[in-house]
């Protein structure tokens, strides 16, 4: 057992660092986008439409990863798109985590009618097709960054609530919690001081996974053209554009796809790495 | 002529190299019962497992021979070795509650070896299963054959496993502490049943146990193990009259009497343990040099 786990840790090492490296680069690109992007991501030039990337024949210097059908620079749009992707990941991920984990904690620890109401709500939420639900919400809320964030929070809180509820329930049944209560502490303070610290590793792992999911949801919403205004550079929007011109200009699709792929993979590897290292429960 | 001969068998843990068996030699003659005794961790179960080719994957054999009916098992390729063992030997496992597959009915678990390995017709195998269940005194065997394991008691399941072990008339059966997991009241009956079956079928039996009382009742000869090493290999009569090794004497003194299980639990004296450990160390040095 013991050396088996050591092996897992050793293997998790490089994956963890590579993931952190990619996410760090991404964060840097997002922060410095206006200074490091070689072109204006919105500038159109129909004479320079569908230029291939730098290594292919017919490439134009300065347009490293080519241009889309409107002549917009793919690399610059990618860099600016990282801003939105990471904003959504951080903000939507954190708010979802806060709300979902709180509800799960309350349901799992307080039990009784609080648990009944929250569990029933989770059941109902689980019966919704999530992608359709998010598209519906965006249609209702109107396009824009805050709408995307609200949609993600409204849909994904159950991911946290389900796991944290089960976890809090298991912890609540343990002796140390009972002894804390006998010692005359209030239920709420027991929850925060005794249960929360034990559930925290699980929550952190779920949070990293949720950030990856948020990036995907944003891309999906941009893809069906319901995210932000259509001009703004988003990875999902670039993918939608790339999908339509896939036979003429594959590079418009492939670069945002690679960026999205690596980002999602990194978030989940980060979560896995943290799980192996710190979480006694999910491990 | 002995049916099973183990010669200089050594095994160790993969990775750490911790020795599990130290040049173990023993032989069991056809129709004889040989006991393997020792405290837990002495390696007695490992010998039985090595013979049947079911050592845990973390244990590797480093040297020695295991001859079953004159064939060196370790020289055979895995598939052939398994078939050979399946056709000539069988296991009565320790815990009847976990040794039957919960999702299969009893009948195929008794007959599968007959049909799949020995090529019997299904009808003949089923008739044989019925006969065997009668023989191990299971009431209403037709119903039991149609049952799932969880519908039967522990004692009943052990009877089925015994029946299954004798199904193919093997020449050798390894009984791996077959009564330890059972209720005290059932233990005696099962022990008696195994002894009767062995006598009637004339099967050689390798009986793994930590209970010298059991050995005195069913075995003709025994090997005493400590730390994976055979410290004494002797006929049962001689052993109980005058155990040769200090560790054997201590073990015998520490064994509760059958009639009064709780009485006289004398622990093995530390001096004896120190002595036998010194022997182990000397043995390892010898093995390294020779």
């Amino acid at each position, binding site marked *: 057992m013991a050396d088996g786990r050591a092996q897992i840790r050793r293997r998790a090492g490089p994956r963890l660092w590579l993931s952190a490296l990619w996410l760090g680069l991404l964060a840097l690109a997002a922060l410095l986008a206006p200074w490091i992007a070689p072109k204006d991501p919105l500038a159109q030039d129909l004479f320079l439409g569908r230029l291939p990337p730098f290594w292919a024949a017919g490439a134009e210097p300065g347009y490293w990863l080519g241009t889309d059908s409107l002549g917009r620079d793919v690399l610059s749009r990618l860099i600016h798109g990282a801003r939105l992707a990471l904003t959504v990941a951080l903000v939507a991920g954190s708010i979802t985590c806060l709300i979902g984990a709180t509800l799960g904690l309350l349901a799992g620890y307080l039990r009784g009618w609080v648990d009944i109401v929250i569990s029933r709500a989770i059941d109902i939420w*689980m019966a919704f*097709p999530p992608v359709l639900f998010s598209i519906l919400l965006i249609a209702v809320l109107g396009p824009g960054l805050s709408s995307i964030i609200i949609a993600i929070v409204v849909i994904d809180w159950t991911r946290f609530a389900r796991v944290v509820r089960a976890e809090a329930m298991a912890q609540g049944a343990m002796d140390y919690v009972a002894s804390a209560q006998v010692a005359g502490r209030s239920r709420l303070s027991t929850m925060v001081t005794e249960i929360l610290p034990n559930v925290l590793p699980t929550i952190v792992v779920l949070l990293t996974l949720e950030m990856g999911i948020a990036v995907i949801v944003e891309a999906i919403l941009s893809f069906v053209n319901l995210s932000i205004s259509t001009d703004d550079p988003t990875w999902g929007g670039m993918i939608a554009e790339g999908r339509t011109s896939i036979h003429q200009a594959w590079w418009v699709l492939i670069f945002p796809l690679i960026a999205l792929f690596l980002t999602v993979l990194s978030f989940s590897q980060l979560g896995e790495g943290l799980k192996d290292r710190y979480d006694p429960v999910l491990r | 002529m002995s049916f099973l001969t183990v010669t200089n068998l050594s095994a160790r843990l993969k990775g750490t190299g911790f020795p599990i068996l130290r040049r173990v030699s023993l032989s069991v003659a056809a129709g004889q019962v040989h006991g393997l005794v020792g405290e837990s961790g002495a390696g007695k179960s490992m010998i039985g497992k090595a013979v049947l080719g079911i050592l845990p994957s973390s244990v590797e054999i480093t040297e020695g021979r295991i001859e079953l009916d004159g064939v060196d098992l370790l020289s055979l390729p895995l598939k052939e070795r*398994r078939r050979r*063992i399946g056709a000539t030997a069988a296991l009565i496992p320790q815990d009847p509650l976990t040794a039957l597959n919960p999702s299969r009915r009893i009948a195929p678990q008794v007959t*599968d070896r007959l049909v*799949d390995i020995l090529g019997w017709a299904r009808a003949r195998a089923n008739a044989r299963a019925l006969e065997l269940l009668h023989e191990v005194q299971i009431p209403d065997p037709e119903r039991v054959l149609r049952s799932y394991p969880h519908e039967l008691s522990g004692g009943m399941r052990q009877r089925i496993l015994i029946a299954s072990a004798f199904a193919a008339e093997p020449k050798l059966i390894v009984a791996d502490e077959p009564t330890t997991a059972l209720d005290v009241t059932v233990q005696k009956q099962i022990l008696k049943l195994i002894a009767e079956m062995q006598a009637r079928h004339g099967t050689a039996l390798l009986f793994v146990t930590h209970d010298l009382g059991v050995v005195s009742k069913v075995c003709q000869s025994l090997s005493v193990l400590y730390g994976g090493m055979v410290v004494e290999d002797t006929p049962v009569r001689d052993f109980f009259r005058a155990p040769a090794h200090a560790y054997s004497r201590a073990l015998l003194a520490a064994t509760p009497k059958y009639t009064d299980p709780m009485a006289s639990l004398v622990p093995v004296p530390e001096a004896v343990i120190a002595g036998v450990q010194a022997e182990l160390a000397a043995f390892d040095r010898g093995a390294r040099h020779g």
Partner: protein
Amino acid sequence: MQLLRTFLLRLLTTAITLIGVAVIVFVVIRVVPGNPIAMMLPPGATDEDIARLTAQYGLDKPIPEQFLIWASGVLQGDFGTSITARQPVLDLVLGRLPATLELSIMALVIAVILGGVMALTGTRARGTKVEAGIDVANGMALSVPDFLWGLVLILLFGVLVPVFHISGRVTPSLDLPFTTNFYLFESVLRLRFDLWADIVSHMFMPALALAIPLAAIIGQLLKQSLKETMHLDYVTLSRTKGYGENHVITREALPNAILPTLTLVGVQFTFLIGGTVIIERLFSYEGLGNMAIDAVINRDLPLIQGIVILFAVIFTAVNLVVDLSYALLNPRLRHG
């Protein structure tokens, strides 16, 4: 008896869930800004026209009253009329349902086969590099969602090595003799294997995209479960009977390892069905999900409602079936 009571209780909670879904969808889409009726009429329509049509669709009444009207209609099998298509919602939805069902089931079959092969190979090769490789592949398949796999497949097998169709459900120029919308199924019944091949070639990519994450989950859970089972005494006993490792894995360990995997796969299958929405969009596959996105974009309230309810019914039905089959497959529960 016990089983029956559990079943009835599950039926009751399922009903509550479905009512909850209906209420939420109903309220959410009625907060939609912009009048959907105005969008349907040609420019220059008068306010009177709009008011008349609004009344015709019952959209002028208070929301609770609208809900009661709608719910009583649903109980009689009337889901209202689509605003854009001007056809009964039920007809439209049932017309598209076969396409989505066929896609989901094909994806499930692929996932079970892929996941099963991964788990069995991994168990057979436990402790070797092959197992480590399978673990890495599983981990990657699991972390990346169906949407991205769909895009990867489009690039690989639609553009780089164009062997499959990446758009639509069937080649439009083909003459279809079908009387139902279960194209895949009916093409087999009619022995039209030319059409069947065309349909499969259209379905395979979206189905595979949906299947990859589920295959990884099945592979991982089943392998874990198999490895635990391989240590049990009855597996060891079967080795002493003379059986080879393949037999031991598939006959002794597998039947017992499948059960714990099954319940989890049930929930995951509903996720897969939920994924059809975006995958159908990505592959321009004419199923329910594609229709749903169009309905949202066109603000077709009755249609959106109908589709969401149908999805909810499918999800809860899948969960119910899985729970039941779990009870039926487990001999301990069956006879206990």
